[in-house]
Each structure stands twice: as C-alpha cells, then as structure tokens.
C-alpha cells in the first residue's frame, strides 16, 4: 500500500476509493450533517475506526440528479495526519470514503 505523507496538495495525490463506510454523524437542527467518527474495512478484512478531527470543506453536488455532499476532512490515521474526502449520498443515506 502506498503511503502519502502530509498530503497537503491532496487533490493530486489522493486515490479514488468510493468505499462504503459505517458512520456516526452529527446533524444540526437545520439538517446539516457533519461526519464525526467512522469505521472502515481494510484490505486485510480488519476494521479501522477513524475519528474525524476537522471538517475543512463541504461541497454539494447533484450529478445525474443524485444529490451528494462531499466533505474534505482531516484525521490522524496510523499516527499520521491525513487529508481525505468523504461523501454522503442523500437518497440512500450512505456514506463513502471517496478519496484518501
């Protein structure tokens, strides 16, 4: 597995995964979701729990008429600071790790 250190210029370095995850999220009274903590299956079949330290950006889109929110987040993963993107699909209520 490739490791990207301090992927500040993340757009170029992150890999598209679009992997479904289990999510604990916080929704405001206005219905605005924010990811809090999620569990993701790893290639070896074990699970990793990641606490979302910071949500840096939030972007809505509706490609193919299917609304999704993309969050750019930051966490400490395996002792390293990482940037990654998470997606929330409104119609199915599914969360994905989009790019990491």
């Amino acid at each position: 597995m490739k490791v990207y250190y301090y992927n500040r210029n993340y757009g170029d370095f992150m890999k598209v995964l679009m992997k479904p995850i289990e999510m604990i999220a916080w929704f405001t009274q206005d219905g605005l979701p924010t990811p809090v903590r999620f569990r993701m299956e790893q290639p070896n079949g074990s699970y990793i729990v990641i606490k979302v330290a910071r949500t840096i950006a939030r972007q809505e889109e509706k490609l193919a008429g299917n609304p999704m929110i993309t969050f750019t987040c930051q966490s400490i993963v395996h002792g390293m600071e990482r940037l990654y993107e998470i997606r929330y699909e409104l119609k199915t209520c599914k969360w994905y790790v989009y790019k990491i």
Partner: protein
Amino acid sequence: MGTKNRIIFHIDVNSAYLSWEAAYRLQHGATLDLRTIPSAVGGDATTRHGIILAKSIPTKPYKIQTGESLYSARLKCPNLTVVPPRYHLYMQCSKALVSLLEEFSPSIQRFSIDEVFLDYSNMDIHWGDPIDAAHRIKDRIKEELGFTVNIGVSSNKLLAKMASDFEKPDRVHTLFPHEIQGKMWPLPVEELFMVGRATTSKLHKKGIFTIGQLAISDPELLTQWLKSHGRLIWQLANGLEDSPIREDYPVKGLGNSATLPFDAEDRETSHRALLSLTETVAMRLRDIRKFAGVLSISIKDRDFQSYSHQRKLEVPTHSTNILYGIACELFDELWQGQPLRHLGVRASQLHRDDLYQLSFFKGDIERQKALDTAVDKIRAQYGCDSVMRSSFLYSGLSPMMGGVIQEEEYPMMSSLL
C-alpha cells in the same frame, strides 16, 4: 400569444441513457467514462434476449443501430462495453433536467424522457439574449448534472427540434425561418420530423430526396397522393408549425415486455411474470399521473407465434393490484397452455389521474392508492429492489422485469409537437 416573437428551445440529452449511466458511475467513483469508449446500454445480457437502447459516440465507426440485438452489435464491435438499463436513474436524471430548466421559464413541455421544449418568449428581459441563455443552460446542465445536451433555438417547436439534431454533442444550434433554406433543405427527407420509413420510400419513388425538394413540391399534389399527411409534411418542410407548449405529459400509451429467462409452462409462472411487468408500468403511470383506460397483454410462444388481448376498463386506474388482476384475467382468456417465451403488458387511453369516477363495485380506491404511493416512495428512496412481493422469492423471475418502459404514440402531427 403572438407567434411572431416566439422563441422556443428544444433541449435534447446526448445519448441519454448512456450519458446518464456514465455520470452516475463517475459520481460513484468510476475512473472510466463510458462516453469515451465504445459502449452501449442494452437489455440484460444474462437473459437470452437484449437490444441496444443507447450507444456512445465512439461506437459510430461500427454502425451499431439503436434497437439492434446485443448479439449482432457484439459481432460488429467485439470490445463493446454493455451496461444494463436503469430505469429509475433515467427518471431521476430527467426530473433533475426539468427542474433546472424550470428556473428559466414557467412554460415547459416534457416531450419524452430526454427531450424538453422550453418557451423562452419574452424571457430575455430576465435572462438576456436567447442564444446566450441557451449556452448558459447547456453549460449549467453539464456542470451541475454531469451530462451534455444539444439545444435547438427557433421560433417554433418543429424548427427547434430539427436544430437540436444538428451536430452533436454539447452544442447550441439555431434554425430560424430565414435559415431553413441553408440549414434544413439540404438534409435527406427522412430526417424531417414525421417522415417515417414508409413515407420516405414513397417520396424517393417520386424523386424527392431532400427536405428542400419536398418543400418546393406542389402541396395539392402531395395532398392528393398522401392525404392529410402529405400536406402536413409539406408544411413541416417549409417550417410551418405553430403548436403551443403543452405542459401536460403527452404520452398516449406505455408498455413493458420481456423475454423470460426460461419458458413459462404453467399459469402461475406466467401470472408472476405479468405481475413483474405490471409493477413497472403502473409505477410509470403513477409517475406521470395518468390512469390507464385500456389494458392489453401480449404473449409469444416457443414458435414465435404472438397473440394479444385487451380490455377497456370500467374504471380507469393506475393501481398495480387492479391492473395485475385484469392482466391475469386477460391472460387466462388468451392462453392455450403452450410454453411461453415472451410476455408484454401495455396501458393505453390514458386519462389524468385527478379525475376519477367513483365506483361502488371497485371499492377502496383510496387504500390501493395509499399502498401504491407508499411502495413508490420506498422504491424511489431505497431502490427498486427494496420492496418486492414475496411471490418472486426463488421464482427465477425478477420482481420488475423489462427495465425500460416503452413509451409510444405521441399525439399525431396536427397536435403532435
């Protein structure tokens, strides 16, 4: 409305089913864009039968035709990527397109799942020059919804539609009356709206090969020869058409049919197949808010003999259960016991669903309606297979067969566009 200052847009999605699938896949992390390789949307490849429903532009050199069998398409293009149809996705994309267009004009006509007319008359005070606005609309659709459209701009629906069919994809074209001679008359006559295959060969026999030749023919002779259709196509060739934007969905009938994965030999299996087909037809009826006035079914046996049977409904409906019951009755009257390979269900004589006759005999319409509405909502939210009838478990049949509804018979030309 003064016809002089009308500005009509015709918005046509490029390779609609394929583009929509491609956009959906990209959104879900696909790295390959189906539009950039030879690809097609086709009937389920795991069953015995399937046809090409839409194809990407890179298939052009292989001369694959829409409606052609998957088998023959693969012979022409062995590396063709075929993806199955996804009816709900198409409805979702079509709705998103319409709601984006509604920002630009209150007068919109859905002509088909991927074609929309928009009346831009007098809208320039809000959105500026029509051609600039058409470009903005086109670019917003591409940017926000992830697929491309062609927009035809003119002073009536016919010319706008002809214009959107010029060079594709992702283009705006105009075809105003003064441009007819230069842009439309040189085209082959079969490219004129309403000129079908039969009319084309009649026209060819008289030496009429281009739209221009048709336009300068004597309308009286055409009328004598081809009756009212002759006059009509002469008018169209001259760009004469003034139908209004119809906000009502104009489809006259819709049907769904499928070749079964195995021959149905008994009544129960056939009934189950009819249920599967009826589910999709009824859902689509509810979606466009129409009741069926006539229901027909068709069957094809192992020897490819086809039979059909229809009934006018005492009470028009779009209830899955009621339509399914009638389909079964029709089937029992029609079927002679032979093994069947293909079944079809079709609804026609559609009426608006907000007016219905109360019948003492058919009872609980409201309850049926509530049930259907609930199921539709769940399916829209969680997908087609989120709710299914338990009779499909272990049956080998899909709970919603066919996949793509065939919508037919737009009103004829006098009222057609």
